[in-house]
């Protein structure tokens, strides 16, 4: 019997011919990523008592959660990590103003390639499955173990296959698709498992859109998630890395725990919204009635990329943000920021009344730059709407696509982009 993508990569990384679900293997790590919590990793590492990390070239550190430092405490943390990076000779360090959100910066700089085993001290490390990597989140102390040994134990996950076909309706995007899937499977629906997304609708997607799927797969508990390694991906990667890029695909006779079939034309007639306070509390927009909003957030490792800013600019062009609402826009990286600037998207957004935050996580995790007060409601393109996630425990967060976020900012309530933009415009993605 053949192997799934997750099984193939774990077999390779653990030096075995084959592995099967539920086996425990010890696998070599190709890339170990941390953000500000590198400070926690550093502390655990020093407690272990070693002086030198296993391989500085396989470690990447990116500041994103609190950039620029919002407090003296954070500034001190940043400084400690900078000093550690210099002392250890870690070459892949992205300081304030040099990078952006870790899950955007790693691929943008060609650090992630098909077949790699990647771990990161961030749960949305699953994002890098869009580049054909077995990529998953771990905690800080476990990362200190990786910095020590360069290896980690993994239980081989079984795999859920999700086949997607059909053409997206206008304004419907990868975000709507993955929210729909999470609503169907539930917040624990892919617990401990690998997910493979494939099918014509996925292969027609941009890399940015595929990253939305692998990013949010975490919210149904997935350990790792993959989209196909195809020409679209190879074209994206080739200019970014001099390294050889391996093609990797699941075997035709690989065993799947289950296969789910989705036709986006049939199943996704309208935008999907994750309602407070869980990501699997998903409803179609029209089922929600009138939901006034105070804040609209466009950004994050889920939806802060160029195509997201582009669609938002298209929705708000020539309009202004509703008096009762604030629109916050956070480009996912310096590179996205610069491109959006050059292409005029940011000008359009600012003219409409948006405020542009610096590249980074912004208010996504409730630390700074747009915290919610009690009884405020936010519509956000991010990936979590847990109680108190973006501020007061009495605030509410609805998760939606960038197009819906932009439309809602103009309307001052949850709104379908088609109710704001009336001209016929081309579909965002065609499949």
């Amino acid at each position, binding site marked *: 019997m053949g192997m799934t993508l997750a099984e193939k990569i774990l077999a390779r990384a653990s030096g075995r011919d084959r592995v099967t679900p539920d086996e*425990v293997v010890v696998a070599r790590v190709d890339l170990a990523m941390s953000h*500000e*919590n590198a*400070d*926690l990793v550093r*502390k*655990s590492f020093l*407690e*272990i*008592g*070693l002086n030198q990390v296993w391989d500085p070239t396989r470690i990447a550190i990116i500041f994103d*959660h*609190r950039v620029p430092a919002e*407090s003296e*405490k*954070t500034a001190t*943390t940043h400084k400690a990590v900078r000093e550690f990076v210099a002392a250890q000779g870690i070459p892949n360090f992205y300081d304030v103003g040099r990078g952006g959100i870790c899950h955007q910066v790693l691929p943008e700089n060609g650090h992630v390639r098909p077949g790699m085993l990647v771990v*990161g*001290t*961030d*749960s949305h*490390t699953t994002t890098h499955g869009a580049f054909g990597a077995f990529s998953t*989140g*771990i*905690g*800080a*102390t*476990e990362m*200190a*173990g990786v910095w*020590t*040994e360069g290896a980690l*134990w993994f239980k081989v996950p079984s795999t859920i296959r999700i086949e997607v076909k059909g053409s997206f309706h206008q304004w419907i995007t990868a975000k709507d698709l993955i929210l729909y899937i999470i609503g169907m499977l539930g*917040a*624990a629906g892919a*617990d*401990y498992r690998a997910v493979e997304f494939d099918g014509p609708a996925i292969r027609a997607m941009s890399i940015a859109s595929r990253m939305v799927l692998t990013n949010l797969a975490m919210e149904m*508990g997935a*350990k790792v998630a993959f989209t196909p390694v195809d020409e679209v991906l190879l074209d994206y990667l080739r200019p970014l890395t001099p390294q050889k890029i391996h093609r990797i695909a699941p075997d035709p006779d690989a065993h799947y725990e289950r296969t789910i079939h989705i036709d986006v034309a049939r199943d996704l007639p309208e935008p999907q919204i994750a309602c407070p306070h*869980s990501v699997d509390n998903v409803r179609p927009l029209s089922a929600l009635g009138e939901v006034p909003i105070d804040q609209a957030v466009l950004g994050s490792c889920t939806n802060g990329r160029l195509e997201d800013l582009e669609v938002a600019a298209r929705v708000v062009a020539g309009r202004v943000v509703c008096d009762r609402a604030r629109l916050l826009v956070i480009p996912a990286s310096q590179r996205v920021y610069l491109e959006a600037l050059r292409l005029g998207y940011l000008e359009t957004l600012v003219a409409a009344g948006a405020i542009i935050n610096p590249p980074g996580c912004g208010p996504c*995790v*409730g*630390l700074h730059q747009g915290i919610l007060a009690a009884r405020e409601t936010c519509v956000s393109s991010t990936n*979590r709407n*847990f*109680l*108190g*996630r973006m501020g007061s*425990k009495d605030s509410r967060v609805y998760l939606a696509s960038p197009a819906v976020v932009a439309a809602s900012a103009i309307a001052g309530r949850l709104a379908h982009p088609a109710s704001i933009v009336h001209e016929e415009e081309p579909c965002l993605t065609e499949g």
Partner: protein
Amino acid sequence: MPDGRLKWRGRVRAVLGDHIDTDVIYPGRYLNITDREKTAEHLFELVYPEIRASIQPGDVIVAARNFGCGSSREQAAAALKVAGVGAVLAASFGRIFFRNAINLGLPALIAPEAFAACRVGDELEIDLSAGVVRNCTTNQSIPAAALDPRALDLLAAGGLIPYLRRKYAA
């Protein structure tokens, strides 16, 4: 549970439902606290602040499905451990939380029936090596999945840091 002990008795301090996420266990706003000992002050702060005050060393938190889902923040497991929690029993766990717990020396046991079989205040006897959990109050045994030998080694050592310290730096 004192570090490294694999058998002890403790009381059920809370019985919680499905999907208790890491923001509920440890709010994101305190993520810049990197001193593990100080994390316990914010355990369950947003929703169940009363639990923390009543925890006695070795007490047990019981939950239904997907306990610790959400972020990779290790502070969620650290806060429970530092507050004195001896073990968490749940029908299932968020996978990163599960690993963090074991790495920090906090036993996390997959026990699908615990939620139905425990009331706050019940006394439990837990034997990790034997893989046995007993509710002494109701005199019922609670099935729990056996821990991987690797996880038992880590728990016996008091967590990954002392384990690796012994292996590499001693």
